[in-house]
């Protein structure tokens, strides 16, 4: 299905993320497979109602076709369930059948502790597409992992050759040591695909005090990149949580989100932080165009032709469209991130077409631009160019892991 040159972002099925997927360019879209988590609408979470009240299965299917199309995706509905399955299985079955009948191509995500009732309910989702087994960090070190997996897979009648294995380390980026993970996984070579995912974006921007430009290292990328040149039994596909924290924070009434832009760069996210949108006497939404204009003048900016997100930045920054709101800026930020990660991975493995797709507009001037590295990054996260993490040998070769500056020209 795919190999280590692919990309697996974990995304919630929310407005901003949906838009980010919808606006991907076909060539980039083909290089990624999202793992979609359904987050329950807040009112459902608040009142403990069943998931059946959220959306009709037909609506859900139409929504997926609209934003992602008929391409395969990993479909994780665990978050829709309210702890106990009782009373929700029927609704879950209706959702599963609605997705299947609606023309989508979901690959159902199983967790190691899923019971037979849940698994059989989701079985109809599969329709020969196999399944995805999502292991948490604790699962990897559990005793009897192999027998548990075998039991789970036999209950739905599939073998590892039809199963995509996703090891989700969530926020524990330091655990992303593939050299440790690989030996713990049974039949590593036989899984249809093998992905390791982690996410280092903080839960919120409180650590960045006041309006300004900040950098947060993309630790999972740096760790994965450092390991991609090692001799491993199987090189995993890279996955992350894009510009969001792995743990979904529930909506709190009265929140005062900041007017900020999250922008992926080679080794870090550049965060153009504004102040709270609801601050009394504050500039409110007008900060978005200001932040966008400043971002466009940064050497890290990839140019308007790089992605939908970059185009949006240039439109808002130039005052050609409205200021946007938190949702539209999640859309732009995640869209840029997904595009950036896809091309970064492709560039890492040196495919000629990947190099071409990496080329970005340099605002029509074709001028050289320096890849930016956050000053704090060198000490925060080891990279192969600096020093290897503890227990991990350094890179064997000095092959370029980032696109050469002169390659980053306009298409």
């Amino acid at each position, binding site marked *: 299905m795919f190999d280590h040159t692919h990309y697996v972002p974990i995304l919630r099925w929310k407005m901003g993320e949906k838009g980010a997927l919808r606006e991907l360019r076909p060539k980039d879209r083909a290089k990624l497979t999202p793992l979609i988590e359904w987050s329950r609408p807040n009112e459902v979470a608040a009142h403990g109602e069943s998931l059946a009240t959220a959306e009709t299965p037909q609506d859900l299917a139409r929504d997926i076709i609209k934003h992602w199309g008929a391409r395969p995706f990993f479909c994780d509905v665990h978050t829709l369930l309210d702890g106990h399955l009782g009373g929700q299985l029927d609704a879950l079955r209706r959702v599963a059948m609605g997705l299947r009948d609606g023309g989508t191509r979901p690959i159902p995500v199983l967790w190691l502790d899923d019971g037979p009732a849940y698994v059989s309910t989701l079985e109809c989702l599969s329709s020969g597409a196999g399944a995805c087994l999502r292991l948490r960090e604790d699962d990897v070190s559990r005793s009897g992992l192999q027998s548990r997996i075998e039991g789970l897979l036999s209950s739905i009648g599939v073998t590892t050759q039809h199963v995509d294995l996703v090891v989700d380390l969530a926020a524990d980026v330091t655990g992303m040591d593939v050299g440790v993970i690989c030996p713990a996984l049974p039949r590593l070579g036989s899984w249809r695909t093998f992905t390791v995912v982690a996410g280092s974006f903080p839960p919120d921007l409180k650590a960045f005090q006041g309006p*300004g430009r900040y950098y947060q290292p993309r630790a999972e990328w740096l760790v994965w990149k450092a390991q991609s040149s090692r001799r491993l039994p199987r090189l995993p596909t890279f996955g992350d949580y894009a510009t969001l924290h792995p743990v979904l924070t529930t909506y709190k009434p009265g929140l005062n989100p900041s007017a900020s832009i999250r922008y992926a760069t080679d080794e870090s996210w550049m965060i153009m*932080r504004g*102040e709270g949108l609801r601050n009394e006497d504050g500039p409110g939404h007008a900060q978005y165009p*200001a932040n966008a204009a*400043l971002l466009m003048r940064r050497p890290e900016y990839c140019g308007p032709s790089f992605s939908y997100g970059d185009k949006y930045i240039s439109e808002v920054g130039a005052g050609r469209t409205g200021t946007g709101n938190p949702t539209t800026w999640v859309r732009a930020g995640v869209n840029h991130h997904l595009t950036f990660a896809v091309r970064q991975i492709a560039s890492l493995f040196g495919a000629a077409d990947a190099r071409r797709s990496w080329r970005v507009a340099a605002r029509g001037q074709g001028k050289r631009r320096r890849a930016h590295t956050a000053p704090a990054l060198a000490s925060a996260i080891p990279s192969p160019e600096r020093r290897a993490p503890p227990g991990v040998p350094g890179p064997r070769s000095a092959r370029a892991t980032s696109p050469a500056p002169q390659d980053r020209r306009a298409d």
Partner: protein
Amino acid sequence: MITKVIRSRDEYEAALSEIERLVDRDPEPDTGEGERLDLLTVLARDYESRTLPSIAPDPVEAIRFRMEQQGLRQRDLVPYFGSKSKVSEVLAGKRPLTLGMVRALHTGLGIPAEALLAQRDPALLEPAGFDWERFPLAEMVSRGWITATARDIKSKGEELVRQFLAPLGKPEAALALYRRTGYVRSGRHIDQYALTAWTAQVLRRAEAAPAPAPYKQGTITLELMREVARLSWSEQGPRLAQEFLLRVGIPVIIEPHIPRTHLDGAAIQGPSGPVIGVTVRHDRIDNFWYCLMHELVHVGKHLGADCRRFCDDLDAEPGEDVREQEADEIAGEALIPKQEWNSSPARSLHSSDAVQDLADRLRIHPAIVAGRIRHESRRFQVLSGLVGHGEVRRVFSDIEWR
């Protein structure tokens, strides 16, 4: 260090000096310096209430003081006066307060009724004659403006003052001249004698180091002002501006603020041409450049036979005076043109990147942009690290700052 009830004039003066120094530093309220400032203010007010009834604020001053405290503008007072024109007239001293206004101001703004009912002290506002004892002679001696012993001050004080004021002509005439043909922008009581002494000192220093060429009317244009503003880019910008302006016939004299004048700067018509005095009362880069530009506008457009001195406390609103309004507007335009401001991220994003971006574009010091943001948004707590606190006096290290 004063830590108890103030009982003497000396202690009071010392407290005032320390208050002014602390106000310049703009400390946070919950810090040691902030608490010290609060304490000194209480002690100084207590002393004033016991011993200085004669300089209690007149009604207009009391209203202006409360406006400054609460950040009120003239339009905010309309509910207490009834109309905008009445507000203007009262604040200009052209209309007395009615009983209804007194009641409304007392109830609504908490201004003491006795202050609102007080009579204006004509001697303080309009010195009619020459009373040499009212000059701050001790202060003038301590600053080295005049050389005298305590005995000299007592025995030949009048002679010392007359000698010192010689550049202004006869003291009586000078006081009367500046009273008639001068304009003071201030929200507070100004000690006219202290102000006259400061003016004389500025002129004395200008005469001692005259410009190489006389000032020519029409020299100051918006373009010249922008050229001066671009000198702010250098750390030595204030000195470079001084040298630049001296070459076009305008001495810029840096003379520290003297107590009870609350002055940022002045434009003065001296015997040999226009002179600008700057106190660097607020030791901030943004303040220095704004003040310099403001006074340049006065020199270029307003100084003349009918107005020979503009003294500016730029914390005060320009009021109804069109010359002050014009000086504010052109100074702002010279530093940051309106068109650039309106299209800049700095207008709506209070970050150092936004500040630097506009500063780079205009080739001016970032502190000027930070100051503009604070002024326009009326948020004086933001970007305080970027306005260049303590960076102007350092340039003039040859001056004894107190």
